[in-house]
């Protein structure tokens, strides 16, 4: 195997890794704020992506407003999910598993609605920098992929600052860690939970317009993204905001290097076996601190 090919596999692995990481970031954010694993995070991306597709293709909007609208619609979806469904379930005594099933049901519903109203075609969203590529040492990378990586890192840092520096972020953390205590200090805990979901929706919508140019937007993209994003978030450690990105990149690189060094047919087997081993050897995740095992 040539070094060129190995380098190429690292670049594509990085690209895919940030895709997984961006979804994982949303899952981890919602988990940090509410202790709920959101099985429709990938479908937030579908909502964002398909909104952008419809605005661009059918309404003829320019790119920037369409993308901004797509991200906002993603946030609105998160907001609605919490207010309309998660909150009533909490009132009726939902368990960890029932939240998982609830969001899984929402994932099915979103996918089914997109299939019904938009159809089963894949839509290629325009990338930032179009279809242009940069060539580094005979390895190619989409310019859009570089933007995806840069924006993902920016989102990660923003979230980190948001949670540690702003009073809203601190309130959201407090509401998650100690709801009773937060209530007594005057924090509106239900509102914080709603905002957490809205934030997850925003990150998901953003993921949609960023991954759309790479993997295209289609009705059943959500669950697959969620699975990989879930793996990324858990692998990195749910408690650490940087974890999801690190976990995602690890997963992406594992897959990609497995293809060039061993066999493309066994890519998933290799990635999943190593994933299990990492979890056993590092029970707090790659960047974990002393937290509950497995979140």
């Amino acid at each position: 195997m040539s070094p060129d090919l190995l380098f190429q596999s690292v670049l594509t692995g990085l690209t895919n890794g940030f895709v997984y990481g961006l979804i994982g970031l949303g899952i981890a954010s919602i988990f940090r704020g509410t202790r709920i694993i959101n099985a429709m995070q990938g479908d937030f991306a579908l909502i964002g992506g398909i909104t952008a597709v419809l605005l661009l293709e059918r309404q003829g909007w320019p790119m920037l407003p369409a993308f901004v609208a797509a991200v906002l619609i993603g946030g609105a979806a998160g907001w609605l999910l919490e207010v309309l469904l998660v909150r009533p379930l909490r009132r009726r005594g939902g368990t960890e598993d029932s939240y998982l099933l609830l969001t899984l049901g929402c994932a099915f519903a979103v996918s089914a609605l997109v299939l019904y109203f938009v159809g089963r075609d894949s839509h290629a969203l325009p990338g930032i920098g179009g279809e242009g590529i940069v060539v580094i040492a005979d390895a190619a990378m989409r310019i859009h992929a570089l933007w995806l990586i840069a924006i993902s890192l920016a989102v990660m840092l923003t979230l980190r600052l948001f949670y540690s520096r702003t009073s809203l972020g601190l309130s959201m953390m407090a509401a998650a860690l100690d709801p009773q205590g937060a209530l007594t200090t005057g924090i509106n805990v239900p509102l914080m939970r709603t905002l957490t979901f809205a934030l997850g929706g925003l990150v998901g919508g953003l993921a949609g317009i960023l991954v759309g140019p790479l993997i295209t937007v289609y009705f059943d993209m959500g669950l697959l993204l969620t699975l990989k994003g879930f793996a990324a978030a858990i692998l990195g450690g749910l408690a650490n905001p940087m974890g999801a990105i690190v976990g995602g990149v690890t997963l992406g690189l594992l897959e990609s290097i497995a293809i060039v060094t061993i066999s493309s047919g066994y890519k998933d087997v290799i990635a999943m076996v190593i994933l299990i081993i990492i979890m056993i050897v590092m029970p707090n995740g790659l960047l974990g601190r002393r937290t509950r095992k497995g979140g």
Partner: protein
Amino acid sequence: MPSTAAGTKPTLLWVAALLLWAALPFVATRHMVDLLVFAGLYSIAGLGVAFLLGQCGIVNLAQSVFYGIGAYSVAWFCARKGLPVPVGIASGIVLSVAMAAVVGWPILRLSGYFLALATLALGIIAQVLFLEWDWITGGTLGIGGIPFIEILGFTFDTPARFYFLVWPVALLLLVLHHNLLHSRAGLALRAMRDEPDAAAVLGIDIHKLKVQMFMLSAMLGSLAGSLFAHYVTFVSVDSFAIDRAISFLLLAVLGGVYTVWGPVLGALFITILPQWLSRLGDIHAFVFAAALIAAVILLPEGFGGAVTNWWQRRRTRRA
């Protein structure tokens, strides 16, 4: 209401249910009976998922693995090698239980979402291997020509006939499960679930117990898969993909993991409802998802929990 009636009424109810059960294949359409057979198969596999979750707190997304091993064992030994039916079913169970022990030992040290992810990873690994090892599994093409089950010259070759095979098996397993929960092992399980630290002090080897329960669950999955193969007489990889594992978990949670017969209700829901809704046309997938969401919100303890609560409320009101 006289108190003497309390004993006879449930008995009569059971008799009525039994009669209804026995009459169904003669009055229902062949297609409906076919769906009920699948509900029976899924109940068996789902039972394994349900008690792992209910008794040990283990989210199992790998039941499709054992369902597949059971089915492929039958395909390999009965269709390819022409060996008798019990060989296929037994080898599937032996293989699944051994696999569950080997894989379960390391991964059951994990807990929470780590464990869920690990079982999901197992499901994905198996899905790829079922496809790649096509000299055993037939890959995308699948394996056909699996014989029907025959006992004393009676062939279980129609939905109605298979109905009378799968449901007695399912009910027997439910009864055994009920007995297990009320045995010493069941007590240990509950101690492990509710007070893990105290259980450890009492000398219960929690990890070993978990692995044993995982093996038991795998056995149920394998048995369901073997019966499935003998019923459909054709196996291919799409029946053992990760979405099947998700539906097993779905039926367990929907049915309610704290009641013995919850999985049966869950299995009926996920087999019959989509079928019934498909008459609505292309929108049916959305309606099913909406029904699922409504069920989760309105019945947080699953169908089983809801029915039990209702029953108990009725009783206390009468007493």
